[in-house]
């Protein structure tokens, strides 16, 4: 019994150590907190104003996202800037659905540059949300709502239309197979408001990338790819309607950082998605294996 009480006391004290740093810009300039969730071993590291969220994978601890606590308008991770390409199709979104929260970097940004937007996020890992709130300056409210649920289940059970759907639902270094299939993309397409766009964070470097493109092209009339130089990321923009010329997009309506990000994205526009690969379906989606194979 004494041993049990001692164990509980030690456990309690260890837990207290977790709670000290917080997300205030005035907090400690350096800290490191690690927590285990149902899905991930999550590491938060602060160095100055930058707080990074990482998932531990054995010895590797790849960075998932990062925020600048003092500047919500600064998107630290390059691909998150390219995720704004939805504006090339729907420049004034009112309702945005995000599948995968990360550290809430895009939420903070969109609330700053598009304050009128309603943001709904589906995140499967409650600890990711909790740590984003506690350490990364993320503040959900009634116009920035997070639900803890599998992305596909959420989309199936909610038929509201969205102007942008941002898909960045990585778990364990990969996207689950059921979020990569033709049926899932058809579901997303059915949830798009007229003139809406789906934006997806993809990774090049494996055979899965070709299948990602082919599967998107099997569902959406227009799928455009945007490179994120210096990273393995490629952002896909999928939308309804006949293929249009994105290079002719009028950026004059945008200002500030959004315009800069869109100009940069257009410079890195790779063109339409390729179609020569296996289309992934709910019946056949060996994503884990395609991801292991070189293109």
């Amino acid at each position, binding site marked *: 019994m004494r041993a049990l009480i001692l164990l509980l006391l030690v456990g309690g004290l260890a837990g207290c150590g977790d709670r000290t740093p917080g997300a205030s810009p005035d907090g400690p300039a350096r800290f490191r907190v690690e927590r285990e969730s*149902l899905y991930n071993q999550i590491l938060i590291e602060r160095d100055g104003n930058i707080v990074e969220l990482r998932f531990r994978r054995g010895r590797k601890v790849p960075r998932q996202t990062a925020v600048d606590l003092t500047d919500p308008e600064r998107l630290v991770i390059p691909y998150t800037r390219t995720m704004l390409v939805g504006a090339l199709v729907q420049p004034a979104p009112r309702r945005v659905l995000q599948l995968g929260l990360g550290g809430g970097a895009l939420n903070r940004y969109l609330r700053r540059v598009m304050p009128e937007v309603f943001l709904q996020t589906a995140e*499967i890992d409650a600890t990711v949300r909790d740590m984003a709130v506690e350490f990364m300056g993320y503040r959900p409210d009634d116009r920035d709502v997070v639900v803890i649920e599998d992305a*596909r289940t959420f989309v*199936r059970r909610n038929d509201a239309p969205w102007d942008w759907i941002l898909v960045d639902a990585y778990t364990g270094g990969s996207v689950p197979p059921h979020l990569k299939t033709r049926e899932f993309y058809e579901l997303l397409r059915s949830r798009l408001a007229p003139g809406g766009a789906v934006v997806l964070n993809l990774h090049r470097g494996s055979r899965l990338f070709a299948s990602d493109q082919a599967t998107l092209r099997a569902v959406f009339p227009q799928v455009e790819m945007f490179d994120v130089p210096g990273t393995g990321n490629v952002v896909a923009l999928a939308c309804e309607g006949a293929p249009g010329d994105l290079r002719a997009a009028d950026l004059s309506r945008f200002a500030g950082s959004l315009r800069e990000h869109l100009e940069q994205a257009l410079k890195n526009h790779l063109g339409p998605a390729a179609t020569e690969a296996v289309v992934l379906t709910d*019946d*056949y989606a060996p994503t884990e294996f395609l991801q292991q194979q070189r293109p």
Partner: protein
Amino acid sequence: MPYALSFILGIFSMGFQLLGSRLLSPWFGSSIIVWAFLISAFLVAFSLGSICGGWLVRFPDGPRRRGVIGVGVVAVTGFAVNALSASAFLDWLDERSAPLMVALSLACGLLFLPPVAALAAFTPVLVQAAHDRGHAAGFASGLIYCVSTLGNIAGIMLTAFVLIPNLPVSALLWIWTAAVAASSVWVMRCVR
């Protein structure tokens, strides 16, 4: 023969768990909740199947043989139902908008529990068959569970690394149905 059969049935039962996860994910995702229900359904099936199989072997030869035929029919029908109509059933369930855990219980309980319980019911039958061939009850039981577990491992590895990467889940379910039908006939030939 009972040992080889036990190994093969072990392949089907745990390989089917991976197929089950692929069947469920479009409707329920792949969260830890889904896995908890899936694993629990299989364990309940193993438990129910074992007690039913144990009960069956107490009967005299004729009724036992008929019982084994009945178990085989349940197994084959259960896999055929998955191959034929799992997607339609999951669609129907989804349209009812039942709470996630209720829907998952129904999906796992109706789709997976009957065929897996039937496969598990063969195990005590095979233990008895080995015993009838002159092996001590304890030895036969130990060896059957050993090779069955090895079959489970083989089933997981084969399904994960060979079958799912190369074949659609719908085709695999038909392969399962055919293979379980063949194995059921083999079990019947084992029973004296």
